[in-house]
């Protein structure tokens, strides 16, 4: 473990400090007419862990970008370590020991973890820089994620997504000439498996005890409750609530965010058409792998730890299914979902062109009608269907992608963890729609990393190490059973440690 300079050590994490590390007053940011932040007051004490929650588009990421210096505030005051700061850029933030783990990975994929560490440390230069950088990142990885098994000299592009996330997190905690004072973590666990997530949460507490302040943004409210000293809730570009985390419950948080938590987990929907015709029958890749069979009207869940072959299997089913129409709803909206230059209508109808054409040309009226019908059914928030898709919030973009699949002739819809990073309200709307469509006879195959979502499924396949290891019928779906299958029986207890 590295030594933390004692000057920054606070006796009690979360204790009120006379000089806050970060203090903003009425910070605002607007892009033209769009107001992303409308006067936020935010305080972070040294060694404090603040959980930041709010819907998509509430302004959390914008606020973090302002703090990290990657976005310039339009107005408002910003104090760092007691000093009033004028212009605040990424370089200044780095020099003052403030680090940020961004929502999208900010590693250079063509470089190794060692070289990526060099990028954020200006002092890693001259002879032997590579050796020093390697030692630094290896120590940080070992410290935060014991047993990570990541080779720091391999190119990041060759690492799995979870490993990349671990490298990025570890990199943020490395320090050379400048002590780390604060770390902003924007959805750090979305790509992590169960064990690394636990390790990270433990490390955040440990870092806080050593005087490193952390801001944690995540949609997984349990993680917020597990590590935070204080919770700040944002809505519509403003901080609307600020409470000590002690004594808060999940439902309190959801209530503060302004939506009612649906009774997920109790209202388990079981597909009504269990005796329907088989629409997908996909053989396993070898004897140890189980075949996957989907009936009409079923909602099938893919469970297991993140990155254990669920996505590959979805892709394989997508490629192999040709006798019934299949649609695929991608989770990685930016790279695999939206067509960024197009409007809602163009994005929505692209999957249905064959039905909308006459003589090779799309009939404009029919296309527009289809787009309007489905945009309305999914309650896409936009002035009209000609609105460019990129002007929508993430959750609304995801709705358009759902609409693209549901408006098409697809009998089977494959869902590739599509609700990642989507706010609670949108989720509940989409869950209801999926159940309604299943009742009408559509089949869904749903890969999700969120345990709660599996309660919408009628049957589960649990994945481990690239194969389906267990099939769980609807009546037996519960947390413990899934964990047991994911970890291979005996290790279940260890996963909580």
């Amino acid at each position, binding site marked *: 473990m590295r030594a933390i300079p004692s000057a920054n050590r606070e006796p009690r994490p979360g204790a009120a400090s006379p000089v806050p590390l970060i203090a903003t007053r009425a910070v605002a940011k607007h892009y033209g007419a769009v107001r992303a932040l409308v006067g936020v007051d935010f305080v972070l004490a040294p060694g404090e862990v603040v959980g930041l929650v709010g819907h998509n588009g509430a302004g959390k990421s914008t606020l973090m970008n302002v703090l990290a210096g990657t976005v310039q505030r339009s107005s408002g005051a910003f104090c760092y370590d007691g000093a009033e700061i004028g212009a605040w850029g990424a370089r200044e933030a780095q020099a003052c020991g403030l680090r940020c783990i961004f929502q999208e990975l900010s590693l250079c994929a063509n470089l190794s973890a060692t070289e990526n560490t060099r990028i954020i440390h200006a002092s890693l230069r001259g002879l032997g820089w590579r050796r020093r950088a390697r030692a630094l990142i290896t120590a940080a990885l070992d410290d935060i994620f014991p047993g990570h098994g990541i080779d720091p000299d391999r190119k990041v592009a060759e690492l799995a997504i979870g490993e990349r996330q671990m490298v990025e997190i570890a990199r943020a905690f490395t320090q050379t000439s400048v002590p780390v004072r604060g770390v902003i973590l924007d959805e750090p666990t979305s790509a992590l498996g169960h064990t690394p997530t636990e390790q990270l949460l433990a490390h955040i507490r440990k870092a806080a005890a050593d005087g490193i302040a952390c801001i944690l943004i995540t949609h997984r409210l349990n993680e917020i409750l597990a590590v935070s000293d204080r919770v700040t809730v944002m809505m519509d570009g403003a901080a609307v609530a600020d409470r000590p985390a002690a004594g808060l419950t999940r439902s309190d948080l959801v209530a503060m965010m302004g939506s009612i938590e649906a009774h997920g987990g109790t209202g388990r929907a079981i597909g009504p058409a269990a005796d329907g015709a088989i629409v997908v029958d996909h053989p396993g890749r070898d004897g140890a792998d189980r075949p996957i069979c989907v009936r009409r009207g079923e909602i099938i869940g893919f469970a297991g730890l993140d990155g254990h072959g669920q996505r590959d299997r979805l892709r394989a089913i997508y490629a192999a299914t040709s006798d019934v129409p299949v649609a695929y709803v991608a989770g990685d909206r930016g790279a695999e979902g939206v067509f960024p*230059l197009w409007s809602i209508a163009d994005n929505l109808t*692209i999957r249905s062109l064959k039905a909308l054409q006459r003589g090779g040309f799309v009939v404009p009226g029919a296309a527009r009608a289809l787009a309007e019908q489905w945009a309305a059914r999914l309650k896409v928030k936009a002035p009209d269907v000609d609105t460019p898709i990129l002007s929508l919030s993430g959750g609304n973009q995801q709705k358009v992608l759902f609409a693209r699949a549901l408006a098409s002739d697809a009998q089977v819809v494959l869902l590739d963890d599509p609700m990642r990073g989507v706010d609670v309200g949108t989720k509940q709307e989409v869950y209801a729609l999926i159940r309604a469509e299943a009742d009408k006879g559509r089949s869904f195959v749903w890969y999700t990393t969120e345990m709660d979502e599996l309660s919408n499924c009628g049957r589960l396949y649990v994945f481990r190490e690239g194969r389906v290891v267990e099939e769980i019928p609807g009546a037996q779906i519960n947390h413990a059973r899934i964990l047991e299958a994911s970890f291979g029986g005996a290790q279940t207890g260890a996963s909580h440690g």
Partner: protein
Amino acid sequence: MSLRLAPWSYGFLVALVMWVATICYSGTGSAIPTLSSALVFAAFSVVVGTGQMLVIASGPGNIDLSMPSVLTLAAYASMSIMGGSDAMVLPGLLLAVAVGAVAGMLNYLAITALRLPPIIATLAWSFVFQSFAFNLGGEATLKPPAALSEFTLWSIGGIRVLPVAVMGLTLLAVLVLKRGVGGRQLLAVGQSERAARLAGISVGRVRLVAYTLCGMSAGLAGFLLSGFSGGAALNMGDTYLLESIAVVVLGGTSVAGGQANAIGIWGAALFFNLMATMLNTFQMQAGIRFLLTGALIILIVAIVPRPKAG
């Protein structure tokens, strides 16, 4: 800058300025002949450019550097089979377009089967096609049939037929890109290959068609150009290497893919040809012409607002 003009209109604007400048210098009597001849020359650039546009729109990095050599090869092949005989014009046309189609398919085959960057694959093929053309005709110029030459010079009531026909081609391209299933799929593939694949589009087939059509347009241009300029010659395609890319981009098509503008190509092509005319009437040196061409390309690209992709 404060003028909110569509990106593709700048080519027309500059072309208009140059036309007016030429007229001012050499009298109003030159207005119609200047425009008329610029339209004919521009028509060849437009045929080549429309093909290049389809390839460029099919995704970032897609480009066809083999167009000049395909154009030359198709011209040689069709001149050889026609042998100067009017009766063979139609087979000659079909052969030129077929040569282009095969060349386009070969381009795409190298890109997809060998996983080569398009710039390299089409460059390597262009060497091969050039060699074929060299062996087919050598240094000699092959003469076109009289009927073909007459067609390229044909005018009805003072209006040249060739540019009008090419304008028809442009309108067809506009319609297909806006409404056609294939056009929509091409633009989808150009914006995001992975998203297109997951939306049920056969990316490979769309790109194959784009490259094939591009090759065909090069073949057609070679056929028409050799009729117009009195035969196939080895260096007949050289100017189109850079020009085909320049007219597409100045015409408002994004090199990032997924967005295409067929009408804008006309503006850019007219700009190129009217500038040559203007500088000729001003009796400027060739060096000045190059300098001005380069400066205007950069200027137009630098000041034109472009659509932003996320």
